[in-house]
């Protein structure tokens, strides 16, 4: 059942107002106003979302709140409206986006305090929040794509925020272009779906409508699923389109936290979850999703183990964790994937904010080889980062444990033993690189440059850390294992959207054993990290020199960027410079415009020569005209 809830529009309106305010009045209004308006509108959106959530809980399962803002496209039989739908799935996503978003906006007030462009920053952040909320609240595929594009734009604007630096600007462009490749797949996917429906005379891209007519989608399900997957790999940084995310770390750290950890990158997972009815029609495409997710997860984890830039480790970690989410939804465990989206938003957002806290305290230092022994001097940051590390390493009791474990358990139950095994190994790697990060940054001997004034961050930054820290611990408790207290509450909340997970049989001893293996992998990872970075700190260096070829391969990220550069980028740059810039832009377009001007000038020159200034010449022309008229008259009137 659906109910109308016009206040849903406010969830979009507040960030939109914030954006307009910050763009037009931000500079004039001053820092105080922007610091209030920027985060404030997101908190307001979160409040409305909570209100909607409370409403939704009071309704029977499977209910949704809707509002149609205005009709958008009316073309013959094809009708699309700007309409929002707040069902269980979009409720979860909206709360994550607005809640974690609000906290990160608050943190930004402290982090960007020394920056001149604070109004522009909050304008972009508000615009991003607006776009992301449009994405998750849209009730049809086309409007979702509008939000999809919007977050891509904001990602570019925020990555290249300090655009004076040419490298940063380049990385922003790289992110946008790589995303665009994915978007092409997305658009083709939408068209495939529409054409399949149109063949039966159905013209809708409404999610409810699509689900109702999902039988008509069966013949194109695999093709559409794979095309949409291409879009998802672009937005959610999976193989093959993940290369933009590590380079996106040049943006301000709160941007990395919000966009490249907590929200935007989960859009791909959300899209697949939203279109679960399409994907369940095509086991082949789902298998591809799961495989891509698993391989990406493992691959990114191996790279993260050797990176020295703290944000790069977290970037590859994000790619890896997103791989887990894809693994989950690919195995049919949609609720589990969304659950991991939520817990990941908490702990990964927190990890990035802590990294920002450290970078802020060390005045811009991001290299972990120049950190160490910080835990005494930054206790709050340390405590929250420890909580986040325990969460991401899936230590029992913390949020990440419940979500990752659920994904692994259900992947195994779906019959993907091989993928499960790779997932378990990756979990071990996760624990390894995360505790490595923690130990190198906070423990051991201090390698910090002596001129750095290390201090704990101000409350406007540490309060968000604490909030997310608490969530990283308790956030997973909404989904306790079946049989414990309110076991399965989260998945039960989402079941009306997805349907039950296909094999509910994986309980008891089998589930227990599977969980044990994962926990063992985590412990091994932790132990390795302890040995390598606390007990014998010289060991990693010796291993690196010993296995130098492998080490170099990992540090250079398997040379993927170099490969893409060689195969795609160089050709595209050459074409862009010579064909498009010189040929089309300067030659053709400028030629037409300049040519028009020159042509008029030439014509003017020629006609100027008739202005002799000599009256007798003018009289002569006059005479010829008069003779002409008389001759015409004589011909027309007298001869005819």
């Amino acid at each position: 059942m659906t109910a109308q809830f016009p206040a849903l529009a406010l969830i979009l309106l507040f960030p939109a107002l914030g954006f307009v305010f910050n763009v037009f009045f931000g500079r004039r209004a001053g820092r105080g106003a922007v610091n209030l308006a920027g985060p404030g509108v997101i908190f307001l959106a979160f409040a409305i979302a909570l209100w909607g959530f409370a409403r939704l809980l009071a309704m029977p399962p499977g209910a949704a709140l809707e509002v149609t803002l205005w009709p958008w496209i009316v073309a013959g039989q094809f009708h699309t409206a700007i309409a929002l739908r707040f069902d269980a799935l979009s409720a979860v996503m909206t709360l994550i986006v607005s809640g974690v978003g609000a906290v990160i906006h608050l943190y930004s007030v402290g982090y960007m305090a020394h920056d001149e462009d604070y109004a522009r920053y909050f304008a972009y952040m508000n615009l991003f929040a607006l776009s992301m909320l449009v994405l998750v609240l849209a009730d049809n595929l086309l409007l979702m794509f509008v939000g999809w594009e919007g977050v891509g734009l904001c990602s570019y604007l925020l990555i290249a925020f300090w655009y004076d630096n040419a490298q940063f600007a380049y990385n922003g462009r790289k992110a946008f272009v790589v995303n665009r490749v994915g978007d092409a797949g997305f658009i083709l996917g939408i068209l495939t779906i529409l054409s399949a429906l149109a063949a039966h005379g159905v013209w809708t891209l409404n999610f409810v409508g699509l689900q109702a007519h999902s039988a008509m989608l069966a013949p194109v399900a695999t093709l559409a699923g794979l095309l949409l997957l291409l879009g998802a790999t672009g937005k959610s940084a999976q193989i093959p389109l993940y290369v933009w995310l590590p380079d996106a770390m040049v943006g301000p750290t709160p941007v990395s936290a919000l966009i490249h950890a907590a929200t935007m990158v989960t859009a791909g997972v959300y899209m697949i979850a939203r279109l679960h009815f399409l994907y369940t029609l095509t086991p082949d495409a789902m298998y591809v999703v799961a495989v891509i997710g698993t391989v990406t997860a493992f691959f990114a984890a191996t790279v993260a183990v050797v990176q020295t830039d703290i944000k790069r480790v977290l970037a590859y970690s994000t790619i890896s964790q997103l791989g887990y989410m894809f693994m989950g939804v690919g195995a049919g465990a949609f609720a589990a994937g969304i659950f991991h989206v939520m817990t990941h938003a908490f702990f990964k957002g927190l990890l990035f904010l802590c990294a920002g806290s450290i970078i802020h305290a060390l005045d811009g230092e991001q290299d972990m080889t120049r950190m160490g022994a910080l835990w005494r001097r930054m206790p709050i940051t340390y405590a929250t980062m420890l909580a986040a590390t325990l969460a991401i390493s899936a230590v029992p009791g913390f949020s990440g444990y419940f979500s990752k474990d659920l994904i692994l358990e259900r992947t195994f139950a779906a019959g993907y033993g091989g993928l499960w095994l790779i997932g378990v190994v990756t979990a071990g790697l996760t624990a390894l690189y995360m505790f490595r990060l923690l130990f190198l940054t906070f423990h051991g001997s201090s390698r910090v440059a002596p001129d750095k004034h290390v201090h704990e961050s101000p409350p406007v930054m540490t309060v968000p850390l604490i909030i997310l820290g608490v969530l990283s611990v308790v956030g997973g408790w909404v989904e306790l294992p079946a049989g414990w207290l309110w076991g399965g509450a989260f998945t039960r909340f989402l079941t009306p959207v997805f349907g039950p997970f296909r094999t509910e049989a994986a309980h008891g001893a089998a589930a227990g054993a599977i969980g044990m293996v994962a926990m063992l992998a985590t412990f091994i990872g932790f132990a390795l990290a302890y040995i390598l970075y606390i007990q014998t700190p010289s060991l990693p260096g010796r291993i690196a020199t010993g296995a130098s070829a492998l080490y170099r391969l990992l540090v250079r990220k398997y040379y993927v960027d170099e490969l893409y550069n060689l195969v795609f980028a160089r050709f595209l740059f050459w074409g862009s410079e010579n064909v498009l810039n010189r040929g089309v832009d300067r030659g053709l377009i400028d030629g037409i415009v300049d040519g028009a001007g020159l042509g008029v000038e030439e014509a003017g020159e020629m006609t100027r020569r008739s202005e002799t200034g000599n009256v007798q010449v003018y009289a002569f022309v006059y005479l010829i005209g008069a003779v002409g008229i008389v001759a015409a008259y004589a011909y027309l009137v007298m001869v005819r």
Partner: protein
Amino acid sequence: MVPMSYFVGLSAVLFAIGVAGVLLRRDIIVIFMSIEIMLNAVNLAFVALARRLGSMDGQVIVFFVMTVAAAEAAVGLAIIISVFRNRETVNADEINLLRG
């Protein structure tokens, strides 16, 4: 009777001489004289045709033409004097400020 074609022919020749004068002479005063020749040629044609057709209309038009010619000559000469005061010349080729 003198055939009418002689009068009209003379009128045409006079008109042509007037046109040639307007187009080819350099001195502005001579140009004005040529204009007067053209007007008188037309007068001759009107009178001859009026006599031939037995109508007074031609004669009356001649009055109008003469009046206009006189007024135009007066104004034109005033302009020539003004031009001469400013430009020190009455050579039509040299009065070409409107040249583009």
